[in-house]
Every structure is written in structure tokens, then in C-alpha cells.
């Protein structure tokens, strides 16, 4: 399953650690949610990058205190049409200010790329090699955007009213106290 980052197919530097497996001494690791939460303190002390695979039926608010220690959050699309992780992604980026890698995993087809990027994803575990190869082209398919989301693209409303001195939205949400 090719990994696409910054528009290119890249090597995945993270080692996926399954639930029962030992965590290697060194190197970036990607661990399941339960495992991560159980040993969160230990992972926080780790020198190399740590990522977590977060399920789409669990609130990302639980992750908030751990975000400073995470280099990567991988969100799940168990089925192409299961869109819960789009909300999780926007909350992580726009409400909790997560700046690390946000990876879409699971059933990812080219037809989701634009939606995923707009929701804040910047890495994609793509199912089909042909889709991964077409990433650059597909990502530029749309030039018109109506919604202000955290990806900062200019919305049509802003352009139309020419009050567009700033990107559509970069953390303009109020964070609840």
C-alpha cells in the first residue's frame, strides 16, 4: 500500500507495532490507540517519533493532552463511505492545533484526496498504486472551494466580497476554555 506525502510516493519510516509485539528500542513507531494510552508516559519519554492509530469511533478529545508527544496521528477509514475521520481530522487540526503528520489509512481511493486534504490530512495510505501515482493530478482537480476549513484555501465567498486579506481560516475558531 503506497504512502503519499507532499504529493509523492514515499517510504513509510514508521514501524507498525501490533498490540502484543515488543516496541523496538529505536526508530519511529506507530502504535494502536489502547497500547499508546496504556504506556503514554513511556512513549512520551521516547526520543524517536511516535505515532498513534486512532479508531474512528473514539473521541479525539481524548488525544488532546498527548498531542505534544505525537509526531503522527493515523485516522481510520475502515470503509470508503465511512466518513467519521473527516470530522476527527478537522477537530485535531482546527480545534486542538495538531501540527504533526495526519495520515489517512484504510480504504483510500483517489476520489477522496481533495476532501482529505481539505479536512487537514497530509499523508495518505493509498490502496491502489495507480491512484497513488495520480495523486498530483487529482489533487489539483478542483479550484473552487466554498468551505473555510483549516487547510487555509481561499473560499469563494472571500474572493467574491474581496475582503480576502487573510486565508479563509487558520485557527479562527475559539478554543473552549
Amino acid at each position, binding site marked *: 500500500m503506497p504512502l503519499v506525502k507532499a504529493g509523492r510516493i514515499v517510504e513509510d519510516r514508521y514501524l507498525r507495532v501490533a498490540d502484543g509485539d515488543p516496541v523496538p528500542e529505536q526508530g519511529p513507531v506507530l502504535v494502536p490507540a489502547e497500547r499508546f494510552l496504556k504506556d503514554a508516559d513511556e512513549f512520551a519519554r521516547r526520543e524517536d517519533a511516535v505515532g498513534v492509530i486512532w479508531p474512528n469511533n473514539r473521541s479525539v478529545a481524548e488525544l488532546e493532552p498527548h498531542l505534544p508527544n505525537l509526531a503522527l496521528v493515523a485516522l481510520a477509514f475502515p470503509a*470508503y463511505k*465511512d466518513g467519521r475521520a473527516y*470530522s476527527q481530522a478537522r477537530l485535531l487540526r482546527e480545534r486542538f492545533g495538531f501540527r504533526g503528520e495526519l495520515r489517512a489509512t484504510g480504504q483510500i481511493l483517489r476520489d477522496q484526496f481533495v*476532501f482529505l486534504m481539505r479536512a487537514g490530512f497530509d499523508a495518505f495510505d493509498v490502496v491502489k498504486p495507480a491512484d497513488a501515482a495520480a495523486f498530483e493530478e487529482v489533487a489539483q482537480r478542483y479550484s473552487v472551494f*466554498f468551505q473555510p*476549513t483549516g487547510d487555509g484555501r481561499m473560499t469563494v465567498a472571500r474572493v467574491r*466580497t474581496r475582503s480576502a486579506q487573510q486565508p479563509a*481560516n487558520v485557527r479562527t*475558531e475559539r478554543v473552549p476554555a
Partner: protein
Amino acid sequence: MYLYDDFDRTLLAERVAEFRGQVARRLSGELNEDEFKSLRLMNGIYLQLHAYMLRIAIPYGTLASDQMRKLAYVARRYDRGYGHFTTRQNIQFNWIKLKDLPDAMADLAASRLHGMQTSGNCVRNITTDQWAGVASDEIEDPRVWAELLRQHLTLHPEFSFLPRKFKIAVSAAAHDRAALAIHDLSLRLYRNGAGESGFEVGVGGGLGRTPFLTKIIKPFLPKRDVLSYVEAVLRLYNQYGRRDNIYKARIKILVHELGAEKFGKEVEAEWQSIKDGALALDPAVIAEIAARFRYPDYERLEDGPANLTAARKADARFATWLNNCVSNHRVPGYAIVTLSLKPVGKPPGDCTADQMDAIAEIADRFSFGEIRVGHEQNLVLPHVAQRDLPEVFAALDAVDVATPNVGLVSDIIACPGLDYCSLANARAIPVAQEISKRFQDLEVARGLGRLHINISGCINACGHHHVGHIGILGVEKNGEEFYQITVGGRADEQAQLGTLIGPAVPYEDVADVVEDIAEAYLALRQQPDELFIDTIKRLGVEPFKERVYATR
């Protein structure tokens, strides 16, 4: 009329290009049918019994004459010369071939038409009052808000893969012509005690196998907050709506299981954290959208011109049509004309390409080039000068869209049913045809007054049978078609779900049962102007039940 700009045109062109690629990938086998399914659905394409079906959105029911001509063109070029107007301000073509779909979509896009989000688990075409902008009982034009929402929810990156479809309706009138209470989300624009206008927000309405009416979760929402509030509702639904069972996936089930009060509190909390962000509506943005709704350059005219009075006296057919199909306009000297797509014995909502062309022509001559589509599957000419009504009647009559049965027993709402739909258990259109034949005597129909019949060919309730004054639901029993009959439903500002009157009856008996109910009503009503629905409200369903089942 709403003026599209380059952004709208560019988006449609990009969408067509994307879809062309998807069809190519499907035809080459790169995409399997399951993968293709949600992609085509989001472009309004269903796989029906006989062929692919293309559903095209008519946002807030407003259609320009050139768009109507384009629909006629598509009907002739790619289909069998007709289209079917639905209960959600859409039109469907039932016979299009997969390989032709990208070209049909490109042709439609050239006239600012598309099928985006007319199906699939996303936010559907936002509907409103078909008299928006011309009704004498509205506080402002609700289409401005429908358009703001349409733009915001078009290809929304967070809400394109919801648990299930999501339908929004907006109304700004005293009388609800948009069937607000049966929508996933309803927005009723009204003025509060302090004279400010804002929205009353309802959620969780919907028909199908578990019918619910909306519950109000926000009695007054300032207008500037409409996008953020809808975003909050959708965000909760996207995360917590059920995805384990398609029949429990609509927001109505989430609202029901959580309780409307708790759901409302959750929405409130989510909304509080986003309401003052990028979604707070800038007055300049609202003004910009409002300015692109153009109203005709009306003449200064008096109500009730002399030629109209004369024509009314001279021609009884015209007078009948005038009483039935013509309504008050907010501008003096003008009228709103409803075109019945329910001629006796024909499928409700069907319109031929020739009729479409003729209607476009009549709209150009007499209605500033504008046509509306309403949820009762009829069309509307929204700006007709009263002095032109005799000529308009003659022109409409010539193409068989002047049947004076609007709101009467033969103005039936029906889904396509077993004749077209792969989900249906029973026929709907032939039932409607038979009933309309029974009541083709307009004297009889008028004697019955306002009486809405809604027919669905299966439990999915596309014909809105739960909210018909008489509702008819087709079911299958041992391979045969049976029909459950409800009475007392309504979808207006006093919305109510109908009550089942007894065991299902066979196909052959449905029209007889409707006649029995009509006769019972005539015998029971207190005076001629007590409507059917009011008699039921006063007496309950028992006397109707007795009448229908006494001999069965």
C-alpha cells in the same frame, strides 16, 4: 432568478471532468461497481430496474426558461422524451445509458444544471417554498438562505460521507409549503417578539419505515449563525449517527435515541465553540448572495383588470381554472400560476420534452422567463400579469398542463413505484392513475375540497404517504401487492403523521377504498367548507375505518 458566476461554472466543469474519469475507470474495470456506486450516487445516478437513472437538482425549485429547454433537450437526446419531477424539487430521467452520462452532464452543466448531491449519503438538494420571493405571506425570500447553505454544503470536505442522506428545507412564510417537519433539518425564518428575524431550527424529521416529525432544538437562531449551527448539527451526526444499520442511520434515529433535548445540548456545545469563527456570516457575504437574486421589472398594475373579469364571466372552464390554479402574488396586478402535472390518468409529475419546451416559451412570454418546481410535483409560473391570465390559460391548456385539480383529490403525489424503482414492493403510478380516473369529474373533486393523496410503493416512503390526508403504502404479501391506508396525515404547519385505518387491501380495491373514505367524509362533515383533514381532526379515524371495513 439567481445569477451564477464563474466560480459556479468552473466548479461544474471540474465536476464533469472528474465524473468522466470515474466512468472511464468503471468501464475499464479499474473501479468495481461497489466503489463506483458511492461516486455515481453523489452525482445523482442510480441503478434502477431497467437502466441508470439521473436525478438533477433544481435548487430551491427555481428554473430559468433556458434551463427548462435544456431539460427538454436531454429528455430527447438521451432519454425517451420525458422527465419526472419529484417531491424534492428535482427532475429524474429514467432511461439514460452509462456511457452517455458524462455528455448529458456536460450539456446540463452548460445551463448551470447538475446532479451533484441529489443522492448518496450527503447533504441533498436544499428545498424551499415554491412561491419563495413572490408569496404574499413570507417575511423575506428564503432562497437567499437556501443558496448560502447550498454553497457551503456543496462538496463539503467533512460531510460528504455521512451515515445516511441529509435533507434540509427552508421556509419564510406563515403557511408551510416546504413540508418542513419531514426533513432531517428544518429552518423556519420568522420574526420574534422583538421584531428580529431568525430561524426556528428543527431536527430529526423523516418518513421511511420509522416516521418522525422534526423536533425543535433551537427556537431562535440569529441569521448570521445559520452556517455554524448547521455545521455543528452535521458534525455530531457525522460522528455519532449509526452506521451499523442502514435503516437506523438517519439523524432522526440518533435524535430519538439520544432524546431531542440532549441532542440539542450537544449541538449547542459544539456550536458555541465554532459560532464566532470563520462561519459567522459577514453581512457583505449575505448581501452579495441576496444581490444575485434578481426580481423582474414588474409593471405598475392594478389588481383585477377588466379583461380578467370579463373572461371569468364568459368562459366557465377559465373561471374554474382561475379559482383552482391561480394564487395571490405579493405585487399588485400579478398572479402565481400553478401548472398541474397531474392530468387524469397520467403518471403524476411526468412532463414530456414538448411540454417542457412549451412551458419555457410561455414562461418567456408571460413570466419573465422563470418557472418553479414544487414538492407536490407541480410547476409554477411565478410572475404572471393578471391581464395575461386568459392567454396563459389557453397556452397551458393546449399542452395539457391546465387541469384545474391543484390541491384536489386527483392532485396525487406518488413515487415511481414498481414500474421503475428497484426498491419498490408495489406499483404506485397505476394506483394514482386509477384514483384520478375515479375522480375525473371535477365537480365531484371540487365538492370534496382540498384533499391530498400520497402514494408510496414501498416503506421508504418517497411518496410521503405518512403525511397524505389519505396515505397509501404498497406492501408485498406472498408475492401480491397490498396497500395499507392511513388518514389524517399532513405536512404543513400543523404537520401530523397519518393513522392506519385497518388491514391492507388488495391492489384492485384501493380506488374503491378511497371512494368509500370520500363518501364517509361527505356524510360526516359539518358544513361544506369543513375540509377533509378537519373532519378527521374532529372525529378521529374510527368512522372512516367503520365505513371502509363494514363490507370488507
